[in-house]
């Protein structure tokens, strides 16, 4: 449990931030955390690149703005509800996020869309120029449960997607 961090602070310029959001004690709610952790284990070369930073956070709420501050690109990985098949991977841009959120929403209090909307209004220059949301359709959010098999099965593909985005951003750097 102590390996989580939300290390907001001075970032090197051009930082790519990968932010996994979710609760580790609540079933598929942990999908975002698990996917980012799997990506870290699979693509270990990224662990030593100073301009690639990882944040694993449970309930950031409005604190998400602090996590995003200073990053050039942010990739948010989170559990979502949209009524799609459990384990479905949703790849969204920020523009799509608001539309998505009208019908569904991530499972976290001050929703990602709501928080970003506030940030874009108040501190547009401090937020990343590009934001990618990878959503994983959640099934059960039961306290104390593990990930469902469907979400577990989807994780390698989510890790591959994260790596694909990170590689592309590094190429553009």
């Amino acid at each position, binding site marked *: 449990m102590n390996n989580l961090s939300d290390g907001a602070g001075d970032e090197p310029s051009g930082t790519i931030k990968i932010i996994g959001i979710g609760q580790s*004690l609540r079933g598929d709610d942990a999908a975002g955390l698990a996917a980012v952790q799997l990506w870290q284990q699979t693509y270990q070369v990224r662990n030593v690149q100073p301009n690639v930073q990882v944040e694993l956070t449970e309930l950031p709420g409005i604190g998400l703005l602090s996590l995003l501050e200073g990053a050039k690109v942010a990739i948010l990985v989170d559990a979502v509800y949209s009524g799609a098949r459990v384990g479905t991977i949703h790849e969204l841009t920020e523009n799509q996020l608001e539309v998505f959120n009208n019908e569904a929403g991530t499972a976290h209090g001050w929703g990602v869309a*709501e928080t970003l909307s506030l940030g874009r209004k108040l501190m547009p220059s401090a937020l990343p120029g590009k934001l990618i949301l990878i959503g994983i359709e959640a099934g059960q959010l039961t306290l104390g449960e593990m990930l469902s098999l469907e979400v577990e099965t989807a994780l390698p593909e989510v890790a591959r997607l994260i790596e694909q985005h990170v590689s592309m951003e590094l190429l553009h750097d």
Partner: protein
Amino acid sequence: MNQDIHIPALARVEGEGALTIRLKDGAINEILLNIYEPPRFFEGFLHGRYFQDVPDITARICGICPVAYQMSSVQALEAALQVTITPDVRLLRQLLYCAEYIESHALHIYLLQGPDLVGYESAISLAADAPDLVKKALRLKKIGNDLLKTIGGRSVHPVNTCVGGFYRWPAQDAIHALIPELEWARQASIDTVKWATTLNYPDFEQDYEFIALSRLDEYAIYDGYIVSSNGKRTPPEEFEKHYLETHVERSNALHSHTVDNGTYFVGPLARLNLNYKKLRPIARQAAKDIGLKLPLRNPYKGLIARAVELVHSCDLAIELANDYQPQGPSFKEIKLRPGEGYGVSEAPRGLLYHRYVVDEQGLIRFARITPPTAQNFAQMEADLWALAPTVVNLPQEEASLSFEHLLRSYDPCISCATHFLKLRIDRE
């Protein structure tokens, strides 16, 4: 209002809430407030776990007040294991609690309840018209989070607190570096108290029994004796004898009441009304400058109480940060022994009680967590009944909003997502 109202629960994490109001022959027939409470799950989840894991696990109950859950749990476990913390540890825990009050109160005042009282749907719509106000709120909240992170290791769920003290002392220069921002926050809080007087509070006063911790030597937040506005004083170890919880069929949550079967009210109004004289002088002055008359019996004016506590918390944080000079080990070694212990502290939302039984191997054999929202639950329902006659003739949407505003004034666990809730009106 001519139809039933149903505000459904949505997927969320701090707790799930639903409110249903049913009409019969044009009058309110039934009010059902249902709040799902994660703490009850955590009581079972803690069973069989090692005592030192408890502060980390309980911090996950609430994203807004993790420190409160840690502070009540470590005190209960230290009592069970007969550990006495050092004065430096207590001071640092007080500073950590200040951080939580700053971030939690800033959030509730400006981003949750504030928009209701200035007639905005949410903080986002408020930000469009009053960006500086919302920026101030975010800066205040960030100062709390930064302090929390410096002491606790993380800004959302702190991990540095342990039974017996802290895993490590935070660096002195890191704490001192926060003082200029805390000084800005203190002035911003004084301005917040003034701003709070400009809001439109509904005219709604009730005769409450207020319950809060109290101490002779300070404004009680970290620990204290349990006192009531009716004069009763209760030591923490007797809490469960005087404040009972009963299961209510229609609700997942337990309802708290006094042993005389009365409802009671915990939170900032209770603290301010019972402990005003123990506030830091600068906070008392801020209250005096706006002509504050106590006791406050209007739940919407909990916002004013929070604003006054914000001044107190910033001022105390500055003093504690300036004096921070820890000596010796940051935690006490613990000898395992079976025992039972109680811990009570004042979460931003009100009194938070923990009780644990630990066995000879340091494993948890029993956990009881009574959160403030559960204690206010019956009072919230009573207030909804009291409000109902005044709103029953309003248009449907307006009536729904009135009920929502009242609930939000309590800052219940559901409040962090209440703006996220979408209203559905049953058409039967």
